[in-house]
């Protein structure tokens, strides 16, 4: 008895979960007149329905119904069980082709979309309130233009879609790249020039202000230290001596000497020119007395 009760509860939970799962599915996009658009597995272009699993768990559509005329089995298609492809992954899409034949496999319905101007998705009972339904005017359907749900600022709106997107979201990515949008707003580039130059100036102006302040602070600190230690600052020293020489010539001369040394005059130097005394420790190995240059004694 207890086992039966547990089983019953589990079945109820399972049914509830399935029901919740199927309720997450929506009719996302429909193409009534397919002339030069998405092909089915047989290479035919026929009207199609795209269902979207809006939930975050997978849903198996086996047993659910698609209908263009409620209560009429001629116009209602039961999605077959036993086909693993009827399981829709979370946030994924599934497409059914509507060619009016039910002999071409799981994803071909026994009705076409140009008959009633109505489409509904129903649960396994095939009765009751549809999970989702749409109404459209068949005569207004343009070739290769789909209808579906499009997210707008005012919420989801059902209508003509700017692009057909079978198996994908209807929110068409804005194809105009960012740079072209910018160009449209600023065709001459003046706004860009003013903005960018302002940013460059601000960046370097900040550095200028900071290092200007830092420089002044450092000068004061150095001055204080020198005063404290009794040293005479360099500018003052120059004034006292009447030395107005800027030092630029020295810098340039040193730079030139280094440049010539490094790049031209001494490309590869194996010895070192120095004014320091070079001390060599005595060794009999380098002694001239034992050198071979000594003329041998001929005696």
């Amino acid at each position, binding site marked *: 008895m207890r086992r039966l009760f547990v089983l019953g509860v589990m079945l109820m939970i399972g049914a509830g979960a399935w029901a919740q799962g199927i309720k997450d599915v929506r009719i996302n996009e429909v193409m009534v007149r397919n002339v030069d658009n998405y092909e089915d597995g047989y290479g035919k272009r026929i009207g199609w329905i795209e269902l979207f699993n809006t939930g975050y768990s997978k849903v198996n559509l086996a047993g659910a119904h698609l209908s263009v005329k409620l209560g009429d089995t001629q116009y209602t298609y039961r999605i077959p069980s036993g086909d693993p492809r009827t399981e829709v992954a979370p946030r994924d899409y599934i497409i059914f082709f509507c060619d009016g034949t039910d002999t071409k496999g799981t994803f071909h319905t026994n009705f076409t979309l140009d008959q009633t101007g109505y489409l509904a998705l129903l649960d396994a009972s095939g009765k009751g309130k549809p999970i989702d339904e749409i109404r459209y005017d068949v005569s207004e359907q343009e070739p290769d233009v789909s209808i579906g749900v499009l997210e707008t600022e005012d919420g989801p709106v059902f209508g003509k879609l700017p692009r057909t997107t079978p198996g994908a979201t209807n929110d068409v990515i804005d194809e105009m*790249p*960012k*740079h*072209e949008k*910018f*160009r449209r707003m600023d*065709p*001459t*580039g*003046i706004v*860009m*020039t003013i*903005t*960018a*130059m302002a*940013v*460059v*100036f*601000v*960046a*370097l*102006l*900040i*550095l*200028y202000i*900071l*290092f*200007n302040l*830092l*420089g002044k602070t*450092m*000068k004061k600190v*150095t001055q204080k230290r020198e005063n404290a230690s009794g040293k005479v600052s*360099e500018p003052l020293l120059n004034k006292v001596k009447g030395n107005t020489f*800027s*030092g*630029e*010539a020295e*810098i*340039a001369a040193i*730079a030139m000497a280094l440049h010539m040394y490094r790049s031209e005059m001494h490309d590869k130097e194996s010895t070192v020119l120095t004014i320091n005394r070079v001390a060599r420790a005595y060794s009999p190995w380098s002694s001239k007395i034992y050198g071979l240059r000594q003329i041998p004694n001929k005696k």
Partner: protein
Amino acid sequence: MLAEAANPGFLSFLGDNLQQFYTFTGFANLTWGHLIMIAVGMFFIYLAIAKHFEPMLLVPIGFGIIVGNIPFFPGMEVGIYEEGSVLNYLYFGVVKGVYPPLIFLGIGAMTDFSALISNPKLMLVGAAAQFGIFAAYMAVLGLSALGFDYTAAEAGAIGIIGGADGPTAIFLSSRLAPDLMGAIAISAYSYMALVPLIQPPVMRLLTTKKERLIHMKSPRQISQTEKILFPIIGLLFTAFLVPSALPLLGMLFFGNLLKECGVTKRLANTASGPMIDIVTILIGLTVGASTQATTFLTLKSIGTFAIGACAFFFATASGVLFVKFMNLFLKEGNKINPLIGNAGVSAVPLAARVSQDMGIKYDKTNYLLMHAMGPNVAGVIGSAVAAGVLLSFLG
């Protein structure tokens, strides 16, 4: 054996094979475009060796142009644009913008910012010279309005030539206009090498003799603390303002900190020595090789060259004119010689050398090199910031 060789079947087999072999040779696939590009490569090598124009860059680029324009049968996995080829692997560093930041690391590690820190108002000259970038940007947009097929992103990428900074040009063009990257890089490096020819006429045109004779105050001594603070503060304020330039600015200031902190001499030596040399070889060779005639010789590439020259002209002119403008507000004795305005374009240290040469020409005791290094290194920062702005708006 001889009889076998004389067999007509064997001869036709040999003939077919030789014919097939011929189709794989460069001769069979040669076009006029390849010959033109090979000549361009040779000219670059000539400029580098005979005229000493940026030899470190022009030799690898020139040779790369020759390598990239050896005709071959497509599908042999040898070309730079063929997946799986060695050149393609090396080119990855250019396409993905890996090499430019590494070069900036080396530049940071070898650049002495003392001239800039001692006279920080010269930073503004570096900022002003970036106008060349945006003048070129507007020029390209103007050409597009006349019917030339340039996108706004391509206009931005071409404009960066005016920054006179090869790595920045490669970094930005790899993101905004990968198809034009070869043309932009070649154009940027070519005009950088030609700075001693392009800038002096503009500088002469925009300055008076009196202005050229201005002696500037010698820069003050910079403390070690200031040198250490510069890369840290510099990074914080520029990268916070333009985070898109972080790869360039981050590496530049990091390299400089390695140099100035005094405790990472080995790292600084590696960054400013072997590492930058290796990356320069790779970037030069691959950028050169990317100028494959089949993809490079287009009207857009030629237009890129033409606008690049305009960009350099405007960059030089805006730097010089801005110094003149600053002088209106500076006291006598503090005035800046406008001959250092040209150095606001990066092109370190070539543009500063041009200032020095021009200064010496008019007054043999007027040494402008140290002063010109200020706007010159500010130009490196400025062009990186400008690239970041372009990337933010157009990327």
